[in-house]
């Protein structure tokens, strides 16, 4: 009975051979010990995770480990997870977080370091190959501690594996650029010329998020890292009035001037819709635009989209973001949870996610499927220079993001005031916040 079940589960799997061979070689099924266990998974009700439900069923078929999925609306996810993980014993065995939250989760001691499982020979699949997972994703979503507390480094540790992660690439309308005799831009200088050309031709150039608050900040951050800017220097001094940061704001202003009507009101949905509905020639944001452009319910431009690397300014630096999965410290089924995470992020699992319509996290998966998806070669090329530190993951970031940058950048795109003045004022405001929150205590202590 169990054998047929396993056989069924394996059937049609790319991993069939590997999984069964492993079982045979060890003379015991590595999952057997945990068969019948039920683990509870908390993740958001987003497309990638909905696609993953099939993979989860297949996992249960193959391993006998039951999985209960608690899929929550994205906005409710964090509060719910914190609530569960703060209990002495929680209901969740696997949680999925947005990279923004990882520092907070670890600081509160809510997560289990994954190193303790990667040392276990009976749990780790020798073929797992963690190095195949895009570095930028792993660092961005999984590593906490280290330099700045959210970057890799000797004091850092691995708490999660990226699952449903993404990076930024350039998408463009092949037909429009061809018609105008324009080459896809590869640098920011080229991009600015192209935008002007398109604008002069009466074609809305690039769409962007621009709504007051974190949306407009997100639009700006896309350009900050490639143009060589940072939010803080190494002493936590804000640098949002640096020439690089001001140039990024200038780019954003030019985008708003040459792009589709209404950028100051665009959130992510509106910005994407403008491109998908044919109202913009360029799109510089998440790679998810590729899947959306193929969806006839959302898109009028299927087949007309080409992809390129995030344009380079002084350096190559795309954004990374999305989700990672890890294990709460108060989970009662941590080994089974590890097996689950390993399964869905394994080479076979990653390939299966592509087949189910999700986003891969492994370079090998991207390369293997390059023929089927136009954007994959671009993403594979993009990831090595993706920048996991494109914004600080500190508690004060919320206030800086929304109250300081969100306001200043709205001024940038809705007025003609000098950008330097706007950013100088914002920088001063940011400094006051950092001062208030005690970031300069060490500096003043040393100074005395």
């Amino acid at each position, binding site marked *: 009975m169990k054998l047929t079940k396993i056989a069924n589960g394996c059937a049609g799997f790319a991993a069939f051979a590997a999984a069964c061979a492993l079982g045979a070689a060890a003379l015991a099924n590595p999952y057997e010990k945990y068969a019948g266990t039920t683990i509870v998974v908390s993740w958001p009700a987003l497309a990638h995770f909905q696609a993953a439900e099939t993979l989860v069923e297949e996992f249960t078929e193959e391993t006998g480990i039951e999985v209960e999925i608690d899929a929550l609306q994205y906005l409710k996810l964090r509060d719910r997870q914190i609530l569960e993980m703060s209990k002495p014993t929680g209901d969740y065995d696997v949680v999925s977080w947005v990279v923004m939250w990882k520092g907070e989760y670890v600081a*509160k001691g809510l997560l289990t370091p994954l190193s303790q499982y990667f040392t276990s020979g009976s749990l780790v699949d020798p073929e797992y190959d963690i190095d195949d997972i895009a570095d930028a994703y792993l660092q961005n979503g999984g590593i906490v501690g280290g330099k700045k507390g959210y970057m890799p480094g000797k004091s850092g540790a691995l708490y999660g594996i990226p699952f449903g992660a993404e990076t930024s690439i350039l998408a463009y309308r092949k037909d429009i650029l061809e018609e105008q005799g324009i080459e896809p831009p590869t640098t920011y200088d080229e991009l600015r010329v192209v935008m002007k050309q398109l604008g002069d031709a009466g074609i809305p150039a690039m769409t962007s998020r621009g709504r007051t608050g974190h949306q407009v900040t997100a639009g700006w951050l896309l350009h900050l890292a490639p143009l060589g800017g940072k939010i803080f220097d190494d002493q936590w001094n804000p640098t949002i009035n640096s020439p690089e940061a001001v140039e990024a704001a200038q780019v954003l202003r030019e985008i708003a001037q040459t792009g589709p009507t*209404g950028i100051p*009101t665009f959130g992510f949905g*509106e910005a994407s819709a403008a491109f998908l509905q044919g109202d913009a020639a360029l799109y510089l944001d998440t790679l998810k635009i590729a899947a959306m452009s193929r969806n006839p319910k959302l898109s009028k431009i299927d087949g007309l989209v080409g992809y390129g690397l995030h344009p380079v300014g002084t350096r190559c630096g795309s954004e990374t973001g999305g989700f990672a999965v890890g294990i709460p410290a108060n989970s009662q089924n941590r080994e089974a949870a590890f097996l689950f995470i390993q399964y869905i992020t394994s080479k076979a699992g990653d390939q299966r996610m592509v087949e189910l319509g999700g986003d891969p996290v492994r370079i090998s998966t991207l390369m293997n499927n390059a023929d089927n998806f136009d954007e994959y070669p671009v993403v594979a090329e993009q990831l090595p220079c993706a920048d996991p530190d494109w914004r600080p993951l500190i508690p004060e970031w919320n206030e800086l993001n929304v109250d300081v940058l969100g306001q200043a950048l709205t001024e940038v795109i809705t007025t003609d005031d000098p950008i330097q003045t706007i950013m100088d004022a914002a920088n001063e405001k940011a400094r006051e916040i950092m001062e208030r929150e005690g970031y300069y205590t060490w500096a003043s202590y040393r100074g005395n």
Partner: protein
Amino acid sequence: MTDRASSDTDDLGRPGFNIRSLNPYLFIFPAVLVMVCGLVYPVVDAFYLSFYDWKIGMPFETAPFVGLSHFKRMIFDADVWESIWVTIRFGFWTILIEMVLGISLALLLEKPIRGASVFRTIFILPLMVSPVVVGLIWRYLFDARIGWINYYLGMVGIEPQVWLGDAELAFFAIVFTDIWQWTPFIFIIIIAGLQALPSEVLEASKIDGANWWQHILLVKLPMLKSIIVIALLMRLIDVFRALEVMYILTGGGPGRATELLSLHIYNRAFDTQQLGYASAISVLLILLVFGLSFAILVFSDPLKEKSDI
């Protein structure tokens, strides 16, 4: 002997405890309970929180006590004052226009003219729409790219406007939407008030020789004063509570052009996650609303006026 004194004596007339004297308290107990749970507790809790620097997600036990520093910060916080100024301007324009429109329409549609009842029904529909839906409807109507408003303006040759992305246009948009949603409220209240006016007094004014304007300005409106004041008060409090529509329509943007105080508090609490500071601002909001209501009630005393009609 008063009723109250007699209820404090038993059947033999001896003063003392009487179970029946508890009845009034027993009967209002559920109402008091609901009040305490639903009203008093949150207010007291907000007041309490305003002394702590609690950021969302942090266990409250770890939030440092900061005394009055939130209130000190608030006094010098230009963003808070800007929100208050936006709220005042918003309240002024919406209430002024809603009152004038609502009262005028009520006076025009009071008489059973043919079609008036149909119009009345259609007209009050916005009141029945949930604020979130109102926000969504108007967000799409005002949308710069796909909105109907730009579409129809385009048909008469007007350039598309970024309604929700320009400080002045966005302010106009929230005022307009509020008027669309709340004029019916004034209309209904005034219609009800008009229909409750004693008909003989109105006839007396006609016999006394009042023309249409005099009839309205010198008789009808003064007699509606108490109802108008109550409507005004309710709208004024609503202005400070208004959140959902603006949250969806503009989110307070662009910049802080449409960030009402309530929305500012919301953004502080949940966007920048400073619950303690947001609580302190909401204490200010409560005091403002309380002060305003109190002032209006004292100066106009609608309940006293009411009794003589």
